[in-house]
């Protein structure tokens, strides 16, 4: 019964309450040590190198790097900000920044670095972090688009060639052009060696899945919605789950899982966002749809030969989402001058290139991107499918809105049921939409 979690929560609450009563510590002169927070272990290594280089340039300035795991990142950030113990600079994603910006928690980048600084950075990421004409973060990584990692050995064993999977298409009515389903069936096997398109296939004894359909916003359902010509949100941030095209896309995914059994059960994937990645790494999923953010994970941990092909195209083409991460400055930091200096450094080619050199992340500073491409070229990996899908092509917008995280918490339980096949897609999406929009409009 030691309730560690509750204790931590209480401590955080107390720290937060304490901060209301006391002020912050005064700034000291001379040498300054700032802290920087990220959720990515790989990126942290690169930032340590980057800050060491900055320290050489300006010996008065030291920046320490903290890593807070993704699962707790935004909970901890929020309580730390309230408690006055947040870092001077931290990583931020596009889905969460606007609530912080709205409440004056972030440094205005236009003011700190000038309005022309953004010309050096990936425009999609700049757009994502711009609200009401103001830029709130210095872009650090750009996710490219979504593509499909595939296991060459499993594809071969199923008697397929790369040409069979290179340009997959899908359609909501499972017509002749639904090659994704057909290929996925051939790549799904039970313990008797029967594939999902053979009679007698036992879905309860699946040992290998063809495809990674799951409740994954960025890698799976947003691209499916986009590729079917559906929408996810209106520009005001309210949700459109009941858009008929959106509903079709969800129905298609749910059918892949529950009707055709070519993807793992939602009982496995709903609560474990890394289930499909892990199964792909273990050679149990043949086609793994994901983004550049998993490229290092795949390259470092996979023992079979693998490749990347483009995102399956739906009736509206192959429409991906693209996303980015920025570094933001803490507006409450007592060292605003130094915070601006670090932001400037991280927005420069030199400062940003470190996170590209290990191949873990694509730098968002345009001049720094070449190191990333060089890294993967040297490793023999063709990353072009991640970029072809967004270059001069329509994309579906990444989630937006000051209340997106609240809304996402509200709609997730309903999507859980939809993906489990326990609620009809139509009814579940209606419930999800209602809950999500209530969080946006009423969620004060």
């Amino acid at each position, binding site marked *: 019964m030691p309730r560690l*979690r509750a204790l931590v929560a209480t401590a955080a*609450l107390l720290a937060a*309450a304490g901060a209301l009563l006391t002020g912050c510590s005064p700034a000291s002169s001379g040498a300054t040590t700032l802290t920087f927070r990220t959720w990515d272990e790989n990126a942290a290594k690169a930032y340590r190198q980057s800050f060491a280089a900055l320290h050489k340039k300006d010996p008065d300035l030291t920046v320490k790097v903290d890593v807070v795991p993704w699962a707790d990142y935004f909970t901890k950030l929020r309580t730390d900000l309230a408690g006055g113990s947040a870092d001077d600079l931290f990583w931020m994603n596009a889905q969460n920044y606007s609530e912080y910006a709205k409440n004056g928690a972030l440094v205005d980048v236009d003011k700190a670095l000038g309005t022309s600084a953004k010309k050096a950075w990936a425009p999609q990421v700049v757009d994502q972090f711009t609200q009401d004409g103001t830029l709130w973060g210095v872009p650090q990584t750009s996710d490219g688009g979504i593509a499909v990692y595939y296991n060459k050995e499993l594809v071969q064993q199923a008697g397929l060639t790369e040409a069979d999977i290179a340009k997959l298409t899908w359609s909501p009515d499972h017509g002749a052009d639904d090659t994704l389903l057909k290929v996925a069936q051939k790549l799904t096997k039970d313990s008797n060696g029967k594939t999902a398109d053979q009679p007698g296939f036992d879905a309860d004894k699946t040992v290998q899945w063809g495809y990674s359909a799951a409740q994954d916003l960025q890698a799976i359902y947003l691209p499916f919605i986009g590729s079917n010509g559906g929408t996810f949100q209106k520009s005001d941030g309210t949700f459109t789950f009941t858009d008929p095209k959106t509903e079709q896309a969800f129905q298609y995914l749910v059918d892949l899982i529950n009707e055709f059994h070519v993807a793992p059960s939602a009982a496995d994937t709903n609560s474990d966002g890394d289930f499909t990645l892990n199964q792909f790494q273990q050679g149990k999923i043949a086609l793994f749809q994901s983004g550049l953010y998993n490229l290092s994970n795949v390259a470092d941990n996979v023992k079979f030969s693998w490749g990347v092909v483009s995102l399956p195209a739906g009736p509206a083409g192959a429409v991906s989402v693209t996303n980015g991460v920025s570094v933001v400055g803490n507006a409450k930091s007592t060292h605003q001058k130094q915070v601006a200096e670090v932001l400037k450094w991280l927005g420069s080619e030199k400062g940003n290139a470190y996170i590209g050199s290990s191949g873990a992340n694509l730098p968002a500073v345009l001049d720094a991107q070449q190191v990333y491409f060089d890294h993967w070229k040297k490793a023999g990996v063709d990353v072009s499918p991640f970029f072809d899908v967004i270059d001069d092509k329509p994309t579906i917008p990444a989630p937006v809105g000051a209340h997106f995280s609240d809304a996402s918490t509200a709609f997730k339980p309903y999507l859980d049921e939809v993906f489990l096949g326990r609620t009809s897609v139509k009814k579940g999406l209606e419930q999800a939409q209602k809950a999500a929009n209530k969080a946006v409009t009423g969620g004060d």
Partner: protein
Amino acid sequence: MSRRSGRAGEALAGYAMLAPSLFGLLAFLAVPIGVVVWLSFQNWDLIAPLRPVGLANWRDVLTDPDFGHALLVTALFALMVVPVQTALALLLAVLLTRGLPGSALFRVIYVIPWVCAPLALGLVWKWIFAPSYGALNAVLGTHTAWLTEPALALPAIAAVTIWSQVGYVTLFFIAGLSQIPDHLLEAARVDGAGPVRVFFSITLPLLRPTMFFVLVTSVISAFQVFDTVYALTQGGPQGATDVVAYAIYHEAFTAFDLGHAAVMALVLFAVLVVVTLAQQLYFRRRISYEIG
């Protein structure tokens, strides 16, 4: 005069000796409770400035069917855990005080789960319960979604809780059993009572002080269950395991509505005070601490 000042000095010395624990009580109990009461009248999302909202939080929470549901789930959970856990612990205690070979070893083994960090245990159980590749399904040869089937999730959490706490509760019963003088049991046996009769007529009544303590603490801890739910189900599926403590955490640190969370915490506090008082009333008339 001197007597009075002497008494005042005595009182002062008394308070001085009390001071360390009194400080702890005030700083870590009274003040936080006061802060929570105050927060229950504010709107706070941890970023935007605090805004007093009067009774709005109380109105929202007390009329929220989800909160009623959470209380109900928690009560149901307590009903699943407390009787089984108590009976099992009593049985284990009786067996372990028989002086059978290996008893000392088993006492330690049963307490190990209680000593381990609940979150770590939760992760282990998550793996055991996993639908694909989970240990339980592998043993049973089934493909049951233990944690995502609404009818199974709460019993699964209850089972893990009982498993992890039963050894700890057993310790209290062992201590209680060792307090019962042998001559009473012998006298009963001489009078011709069988082992069952002895247990129900002599042992059980004399265990009442222990029983009271065990029931009060078990009910309180059942009402505060958090770690296991956090690690295994996060309140799902369909709210089937949305116990109050998890609902409070969720409201405060996922939905970032500290005011609502404060109200929920205070309601839980009130419920526990009432439940404990009721238990105390029940046992007060039935406990005899004097054993002849």
